[in-house]
């Protein structure tokens, strides 16, 4: 355990060095990145062997402020969540070496590194916490440090608004968590994450619902996802990568941790989680399809992937409730593995988006095009990320989705109507997979393929070395896990052994399944190479002239005729009409010789609109009470005196 604290101290030291050395820009970046990476490396070296071997780590506790005890404990679930923290954070920092290249903002970059280190340490503390006080303390530090990371470009109004929205959601979510902890404490009289067993079932359920609201607003579960599409485009890309890849998973960790502590027996917990997961998954990807800004699109994909994770956890919970071991083990392992996989490919995609925004100066999908020729390395890595996030073999996204499918299929044999929930999981996963493929073929096809839609794009070139390197590492990891999933699947199963029912589950009997998947993936790659070789042979010695694309006889093609992302997604969005509000501004062509016409369309999130409607009506209602706030200090003192008198009279 001390090793972990040393790692965290090194990470923090790196952050403080960033703050102190900010005047020597390059030196500061080198020192910070090196120190923090060493810290994360130590953390990884500590975590990985213990996770695979299942060795228990002794718990420690410290007194704090003479009243509270801060206690730390690392079980298999915590170890599993520590992996992405210690793996993605140093990569994101390395990426920032070339990404934060502006010397004029060196003080700000220093502050950014400081808060980044604080965020990493706080996330590690969240998963290490053994009691609710420590958990909430670390949770708040995590929320605050990430808030400062989001408002990096604080001069822009949009960034400040996004930061404010994130702040509200983070703190509002924390309130729900406080409420949940208070509710649990009032029954169990203990702050530690054990001994919740004696709590009545109904209280367990309400505590779980509060946790779902609290952690869900951090994770981006559907009605509470609204901050994500604002905060991610506003934040610098290496921050988005860590926030989307790692930080929002802390919400998932919270849900798993409280679920473990509550140890419920009812099937309702799993059913609620499945319904929320299906909702987030499907609508998240539908909203993603309607976005014009690439980082907003990726933010909505985080909502989708959180949905997939919840589907997995829901299958696991349903399995635990019904005593179906296969379902429980595969559901939890799939959900947890997707946490890790998503951290890999989502940070990869955010880094790719950051590189192309840095090079082109725009994030609008419909203004880009043909970037694969200008940025071949970034483009290829983005292609790998796109396939992985669409859950297709032979990349890592498929492995976790496969585990969830497998668990859900085994849930189909449940008696009565509980199997309907399993069927819901399978059908949702299939729809999510298809829509994600549609969405990423849109991004890849419109942004990287075809012809540039804007003349300014000709200046774009490949991004800086450290940015390319990190993307390659992540893309390589996606492929390696996709073809050799053994170790990670074992780790995910090992992690889910924290659940009593799964602890008795024999994992070894399902490992041949992983071998088969890995063989099939290898077979597919082999076939791919064979067909490529065959194709090379067919083209040997033939000359292949190049010419323009066949325009079906049209002789005046322009790049503006290309299909846009908006038109690509139009028919799918139309299909999901009641859940997406499509706002179109188009006057139509009136005259025989039409003048300039404009066409403007936005796909709007029903939930964001609904919530803002509720918020507006509440503020206007409260605005009626504005006369209480008159600015007259004597009257304020009178309020205080009156309150005291009333309180004294009643208590």
């Amino acid at each position, binding site marked *: 355990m001390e090793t972990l604290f040393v790692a965290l101290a090194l990470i923090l030291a790196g952050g403080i060095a960033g703050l102190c050395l900010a005047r020597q820009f390059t030196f500061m970046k080198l020192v910070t990145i090196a120190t923090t990476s060493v810290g994360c490396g130590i953390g990884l070296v500590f975590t990985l062997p213990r996770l695979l071997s299942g060795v228990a780590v002794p718990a420690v506790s410290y007194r704090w402020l003479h009243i509270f005890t801060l206690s730390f404990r690392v079980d298999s679930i915590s170890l599993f969540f520590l992996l992405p923290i210690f793996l993605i954070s140093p990569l994101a920092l390395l990426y920032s070496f070339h990404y934060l290249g502006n010397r004029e903002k060196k003080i700000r970059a220093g502050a950014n590194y400081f808060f980044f280190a604080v965020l990493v340490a706080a996330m590690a503390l969240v998963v290490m916490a053994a009691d609710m006080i420590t958990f909430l303390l670390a949770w708040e530090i995590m929320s605050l440090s990430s808030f400062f990371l989001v408002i990096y470009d604080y001069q822009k109004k949009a960034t400040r608004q996004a930061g404010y929205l994130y702040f509200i959601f983070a703190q509002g979510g924390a309130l729900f968590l406080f409420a949940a902890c208070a509710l649990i404490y009032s029954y169990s009289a203990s702050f530690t994450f054990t001994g919740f067993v004696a709590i009545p079932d109904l209280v367990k359920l309400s505590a779980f619902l509060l946790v779902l609201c609290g952690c869900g607003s951090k994770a981006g579960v559907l009605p509470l996802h609204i901050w994500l599409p604002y905060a991610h485009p506003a934040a610098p890309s290496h921050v988005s990568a860590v926030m989307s890849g790692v930080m929002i998973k802390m919400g998932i960790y919270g849900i798993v941790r409280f679920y473990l502590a509550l140890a419920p027996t009812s099937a309702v917990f799993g059913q609620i989680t499945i319904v929320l997961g299906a909702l987030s998954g499907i609508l998240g990807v539908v909203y993603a399809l309607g976005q014009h800004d690439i980082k907003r699109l990726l933010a909505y994909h985080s909502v989708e992937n959180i949905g997939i994770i919840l589907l997995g956890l829901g299958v696991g919970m349903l399995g635990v409730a019904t005593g179906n071991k296969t379902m429980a083990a595969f559901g939890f392992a799939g959900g947890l593995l997707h946490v890790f996989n998503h951290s890999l490919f989502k940070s990869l995609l955010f880094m790719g988006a950051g590189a192309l925004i840095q090079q082109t100066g725009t994030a609008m999908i419909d203004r880009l095009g043909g970037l694969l020729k200008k940025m071949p390395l970034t483009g290829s890595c983005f292609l790998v990320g796109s396939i992985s996030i669409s859950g297709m073999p032979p990349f890592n996204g498929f492995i976790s989705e496969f585990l969830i499918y497998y668990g859900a299929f085994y849930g189909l044999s449940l008696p009565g109507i509980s199997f309907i929930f399993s069927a819901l999981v399978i*059908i949702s996963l299939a729809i999510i997979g298809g829509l994600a493929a549609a969405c990423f073929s849109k991004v890849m096809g419109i942004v990287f393929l075809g012809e540039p839609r804007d003349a300014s794009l000709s200046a774009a070139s490949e991004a800086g070395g450290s940015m390319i390197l990190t993307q390659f590492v992540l893309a390589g990891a996606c492929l390696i896990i996709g073809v050799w999933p053994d170790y990670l699947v074992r780790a995910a199963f090992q992690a889910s052994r924290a659940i009593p029912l799964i602890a008795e589950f024999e994992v070894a009997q399902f490992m041949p399944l992983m071998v088969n998947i890995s063989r099939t993936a290898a077979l597919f790659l082999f076939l791919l190479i064979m067909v490529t070789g065959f194709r090379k042979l067919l083209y040997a010695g033939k000359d292949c002239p190049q010419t323009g694309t066949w325009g079906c006889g049209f002789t005046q093609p322009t790049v503006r005729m290309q*299909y846009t992302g908006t038109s690509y997604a139009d*028919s799918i969005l139309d299909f999901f009409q009641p859940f997406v509000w499509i706002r179109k501004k188009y006057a139509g062509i009136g005259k025989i010789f039409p003048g300039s016409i404009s066409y403007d369309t936005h796909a709007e999130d029903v939930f964001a609109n609904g919530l803002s409607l509720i918020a507006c009506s509440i503020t206007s209602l409260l605005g009626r009470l504005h006369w209480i706030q008159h600015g007259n200090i004597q009257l304020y003192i009178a309020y205080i005196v009156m309150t005291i008198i009333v309180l004294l009279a009643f208590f």
Partner: protein
Amino acid sequence: MEAILSFCFAVLLAPLFPVVIQKVKAGIAGKQGPPWLINYYTVVKLLRKGSVYSTSTSFVFKLGPVVSLAASFLLLLFFPWAGRAPLCSFHGDVIMLFYIMGLGRFFTILAALDTASPFEGMGAAREAFFSVLAEATIFCILILFFRLTGSLSFAEFFVDTHFLNLMDTHGALLLLAVVGLYIVMLTENSRVPVDDPATHLELTMIHEVMILDHSGPDLALIEIGAWFKLLFYAAFLSCIVNPFQVDNIFLNGFLFYVVVVFVYITIGVVESCMARYKLEVVPKFILKASILVLFGIILTIGGL
């Protein structure tokens, strides 16, 4: 050995069967139709040629045909031809195979978008949309099959068992799956009434327009991949509807392919009697399939 032989047989015959459709269509129209070996001639002709590439394209364009062919080839390796054990199989392979098919489609779509042509973009968008619905239907069918048999691989579905057969106890339920699967087959293989494989240069089509810029050997790879895919779906259907169960291996294989040809004939008949649907109607048509299968799943609630 037997598995290898039956696999090779399927691969070699795959280009022959689509001619059945053309012959049926020609017959109904009172024409003679192309020669039986037309597809083999086409492949040889295309393989001899070179290609013309668009200046807009990148390496992804060349990857498209390769990935889609490799995906459909892999699918054939896992399929139990005429109820004989396939070359490869494992519990859960159906999930992986349909996802690999998705990868093939993903690259076909990317290759289409790579040409910067508005027509191909249009086709790509439609393909992406309709395949979402088709994939959901396929997984509904897999749910129904799992409820009936507890199996998750083609081998478990069909090798040495006739449980998933119209003639068996759950034939009535399977009828719903057959209709659903038939609609998926028409969708995934871009046949009438979802798509029209006969028109090359109209805005009404999906798959044909996506491969407009491919030529020479690249086009041949795409065509071969498409024949494999169609053969897979036809064989999948045949396994369910096949009424003949004989002990003799050769006779059994022969009767299996007779049923496969029958499926191709029905496609030809469908194409001769109806036009393709308007594009707004197509999603409803595919949804009909998933609703039917979902109904089948609901019918299993009462116990089997």
